């Protein structure tokens, strides 16, 4: 059974077919790329998978169960987490709190014990802080834990978004242009980190990216979208030499 499978997935926005007939299949611990020209519908796929939009047709099955109609927070809790193309951190909160707020949703201690500082609160709170700090270590960000998220440089904000998504312990991580705005060195580092995250967390990763060096370097399979439909899928080598893909990217 695939971790995630979509069949005939489509959505119409006021008469415009934004996506049509999208078939995706992601196995556990795979790293998959989703590419295509601007406006091809890549982020729309993410929005469908995370419940932001409800598809007008087709099926999405995650771990064998349909997730259509589930709310975004429910989908996050069953194991699909994401980052955003334009960074959407909780900027007024600290780096540590950004991570903790995303992990605490499956924690159980009640308001009363929190207000009166009862032992269960302390225990849970300490455990969460430790875990959050562990997560920050992945990107060497322990020393900025207490800083306000908005004070981080751009590259670290992107990294923090990935950590915040990982805090929910997802089985599938969706990365929306993780390398946007990064220089070649940073992009190369990111490639290593993506592999490391897969090993550490046993998570499958679906990533949208325009940086072909990253996509070709890290992805095991790639899906190509153009005008809302899939025009190709295969290994990086296959995609590189695919006529339709070359045409879609170069025009003509």
């Amino acid at each position, binding site marked *: 059974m695939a971790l995630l499978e979509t069949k005939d997935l489509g959505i119409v926005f006021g008469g415009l077919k934004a996506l049509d007939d999208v078939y995706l299949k992601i196995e556990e611990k795979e790293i998959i790329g989703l590419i295509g020209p601007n406006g091809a519908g890549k982020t729309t796929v993410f929005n469908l998978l995370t419940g932001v939009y409800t598809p007008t047709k087709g099926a999405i099955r995650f771990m064998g169960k349909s997730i259509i109609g589930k*709310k975004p927070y429910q989908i996050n809790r069953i194991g699909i987490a994401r980052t955003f193309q334009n960074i*959407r951190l909780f900027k007024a909160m600290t780096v540590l709190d950004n991570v903790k707020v995303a992990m605490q949703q*499956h924690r159980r201690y009640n308001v009363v014990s929190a207000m009166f500082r009862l032992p269960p609160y302390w225990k849970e709170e300490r455990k969460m802080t430790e875990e959050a700090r562990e997560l920050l270590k992945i990107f060497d960000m322990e020393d900025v834990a207490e800083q306000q998220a908005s004070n981080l440089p751009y590259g670290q904000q992107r990294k923090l978004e990935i950590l915040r*998504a990982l805090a929910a312990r997802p089985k599938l991580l969706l990365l929306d242009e993780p390398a946007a705005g990064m220089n070649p060195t940073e992009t190369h580092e990111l490639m290593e980190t993506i592999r490391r995250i897969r090993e550490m967390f046993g998570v499958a990763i679906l990533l949208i990216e325009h940086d072909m060096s990253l996509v070709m370097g890290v992805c095991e399979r790639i899906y190509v979208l153009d005008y809302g439909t899939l025009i190709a899928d295969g290994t990086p080598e296959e995609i590189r030499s695919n006529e339709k893909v070359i045409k879609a990217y170069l025009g003509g």
Partner: protein
Amino acid sequence: MDFITQLLNGLGLGSIYALIALGYSMVYGIVQLINFAHGDIIMVGGYALYVMLVIAGMPLWLAVLAPIVVCGLAGVLIERLAYQRLLTHNAERISLLITALGVSIFLQNLFMLLFKSDAKTMPPMFGSGVFELGGLSVTYSTLINIVVSVVMMIGLQMLVNRTKIGKAMQATSEDAGAAKLMGINTNKIIIITFAVGSILAAVGAVLYCNTYPQIKPTMGNLLGLKAFVAAVLGGIGSIPGAMLGGYLLGVLEQLTKAYITTEVTDAVVFAILIVVLLVRPAGLMGKNRKEKV
């Protein structure tokens, strides 16, 4: 000494404004809605207290719990019935505002129907004695107002900054869309915010009825408006701002009454509001939101 007495009286009055202002500010912070029905929650609390204390003849300690429960429920009910659908469908803010006004008018008329429109007198409740020290003389109820409001504020700060619900509130207020995708049930957080805001207003209602022992169905209008002014003065969306705005408004009002004239109190108070907002458009503790162009 007289000045300090007036200052304390102002803080006592301001404590009530502050407690109500917190509800405006919290709700605004989380759903960008000016909940004009919030003032009427005080009125609902006042009548809940009246029914328990005067009509049912319950003991005071039991009666003061009634507004807490009734207002909390009323806040949740109003959110569910009147606002939730609009919020989940991303309705225009103006529709929400009009709905809020509608809820306010509905509540006032409902209570006129139930209790007639004339004012009811509350029996004396607590702290009617006078505290004297040197030249200082204030009623105990004034001191109780101040202490209770400070305690509530500390509790609220702890809730917002130290608990997971509070963190989720902050996240929802900053970016509800992202919060949902991080596993936060924003609907639940919004309901909790309304409940907490209304419970604070209920405490305000008890203190108000004790200090100014008269209730009527339209009492929420001016009281709500002033608390709203306090919230804006402090910087709407900011919790410490709402408290500061409340105290400041109370003190200004009291000092104007004591040293200038009683007749133009509201004119002076609102003039100060206009001046403050001209100088600091985001309020005293509000943050200027920078818009990216």
